[in-house]
């Protein structure tokens, strides 16, 4: 096993050990019902984290995704309330909007050579602001088609339900893995994360790739918004605050380097599951307060970053030392 795969293996191992520990205390944790709920409850986070992984692999960051999810929810709710459009048409319209939004941010980052951090920060304000302008109240979504979508599930053995949105997340993860490892676009993203100048010399179309990455992140944030809207049956401009942080945390726990260039979509998926598992455990336990979630996630982040540092240090030794000080 190469050192590239070590963080992924460590993440997987920690997830399995944590799940085993939870199972030892609460045998019900192993039922497919819990697994189904784990997938359903974290569907929107999983989808948005896949987009975030691509952004971070390229060495960037996207702070706007949480706001985009909130905007999506409000947009869908307002459109369904005020126009006679079918939800599918609204979904399509929304995905076009959020993809264009992401592409615009990518274009600004590339053309103006601005830090992604600040550009997507402006995007975060803008998307949340647009959500406020559409409505500051929480708008319920009532549509027959919504009921159909929400009621759709595949009954797993053991009476667990794989809901539509849970399944959608799995599809997005699979699609993400294929995109990252089986396409030229994916290879370009890894190259970009390894170093822009080197990537350019290798013939990677830097501009097109950058725009594509943020467009993809926007698209997936829109999709996560649709899932969130199905999950909550409402649109609220104050929803999904801080989801970008959860997504970044999931990516880091999943073993992706925040400097870009190294990491796996599958790792992010496990990272999302670990975060979901902590919440599930706290619900099962019943006596722990919710703030322990934040503290445990913080500790996990710390542990993973140390692990990555250690691996990097062990595998590259002196070279890293020099790079780190320069």
């Amino acid at each position, binding site marked *: 096993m190469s050192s590239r795969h070590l963080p992924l293996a460590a993440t997987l191992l920690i997830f399995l050990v944590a799940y085993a520990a939870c199972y030892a205390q609460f045998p019900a944790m192993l039922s497919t019902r819990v697994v189904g709920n784990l997938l359903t409850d974290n569907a929107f986070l999983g989808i948005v984290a896949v987009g975030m992984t691509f952004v971070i692999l390229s060495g960037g960051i996207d702070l706007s995704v949480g706001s985009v999810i909130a905007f999506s929810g409000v947009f869908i709710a307002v459109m369904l309330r005020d126009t006679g459009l079918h939800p599918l048409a609204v979904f399509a319209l929304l995905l076009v909007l959020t993809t264009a939004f992401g592409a615009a941010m990518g274009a600004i980052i590339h053309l*103006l050579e601005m830090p992604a951090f600040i550009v997507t920060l402006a995007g975060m304000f803008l998307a949340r602001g647009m959500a406020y302008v559409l409505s500051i109240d929480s708008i319920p979504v009532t549509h027959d088609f919504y009921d159909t979508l929400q009621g759709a599930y595949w009954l797993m053995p053991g009476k667990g339900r794989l809901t539509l949105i849970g399944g959608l997340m799995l599809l997005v993860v699979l699609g993400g893995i294929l995109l990252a490892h089986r396409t030229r676009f994916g290879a370009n993203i890894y190259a970009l994360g390894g170093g822009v*100048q080197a990537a350019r010399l290798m013939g990677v179309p830097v501009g097109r790739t950058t725009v594509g990455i943020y467009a993809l992140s926007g698209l997936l944030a829109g999709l996560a918004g649709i899932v969130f809207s199905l999950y909550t049956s409402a649109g609220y401009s104050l929803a999904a605050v801080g989801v970008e942080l959860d997504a970044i945390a999931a990516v880091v726990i999943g073993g992706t380097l925040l400097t870009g260039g190294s990491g796996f979509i599958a790792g992010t998926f496990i990272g999302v599951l670990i975060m979901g598992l902590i919440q599930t455990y706290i619900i099962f336990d019943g006596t722990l307060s919710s*703030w322990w979630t934040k503290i445990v996630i913080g500790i996990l982040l710390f542990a993973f970053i140390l692990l990555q540092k250690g691996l990097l240090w062990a595998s590259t030794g002196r070279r890293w030392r020099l790079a780190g000080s320069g």
Partner: protein
Amino acid sequence: MSRTREFLRRILPQLVTLAAVLGLIAAVYPGFFEVSMANGRLYGSLIDILNRGAPVALLAIGMTLVIATRGIDLSVGAIMAICGAVAAAAITSGLGLAAALGLALAAGLACGLWNGLLVVLFGIQPIVATLILMVAGRGIAQLVTEGAILTFTHEGLIFLGSGAVFGVPTPVLIWFAAGALALLVVRRTALGMLIEAVGINRRAGALAGVGAGALIVAVYMVSGLCAGMAGVIAAADIRGADANNAGLWLELDAILAVVIGGTSLLGGRFSIAASLIGAMIIQSVNTGILLSGFPPEFNLIIKAAIIIVILVLQSPRLRAGPRLRRPGGRVRGASAAEKKERVTS
């Protein structure tokens, strides 16, 4: 060129922007510049901007120094929550004002020390290192307040948030004093130059004899201390410590203030005064939108638009000035590692 003239030239763009924003507000809201004295305290929109802008101004002082070393501190909002919680917990458990303040500021310093050690000892990217405390910090603050909003009635502590000395609100005095002190220490000693040396090229700085490690740790501790002060003020202002909402997203405002102040996210040359003016620009925009009668829903959109305009003006592509490039820096010939840093930060 004399020092004063150089200084004025440096902060001129920010002053012009601030004047433009204030002028714009005055145009739609007559009476904006009126300041009155009542009950031994100054009142007026301008005073309000100075007062409400205190937390971001304090954060911006520490953030400027951190960014000058090529770092970033995402955890300051969470540190505010922790320190506010510590101060409130100390005062409600019967400790005196001095002890409560001491504990709160010590908590801020400890948080900064943690961040600094992660960056220096473990060589973790600042954005990741401070992300840990940003995520966990509010949990820690809730641990201190035991999940509730901890209210207090201690007059001395409340005075820090809503009192006034010679008519000037206490928060204004605090951030003025902190800003002046930081400016003096940084510019009257070699410290500022050393910080810039670390930010421009840490290795070259090390070869020239600048011990980067201790300096970087110190810079994060200053940021933690500033966040601690801001947290105490925020808690004193609402007479309670709210672990969930105290300082929420203020780290972004603080970073924005530094960027508006023209300090490059790539480290190097910095100006605390310009960052403080940047903080006042942000607060003026916030207050101005409220005063001008725009629906508050538009607040964030206008803010985003202003950021984009400022970004475009500062873009290295559109402007030949040194603002976003390091002095003598090249855009075309930058090494791959530097390019990567740019995208990451």
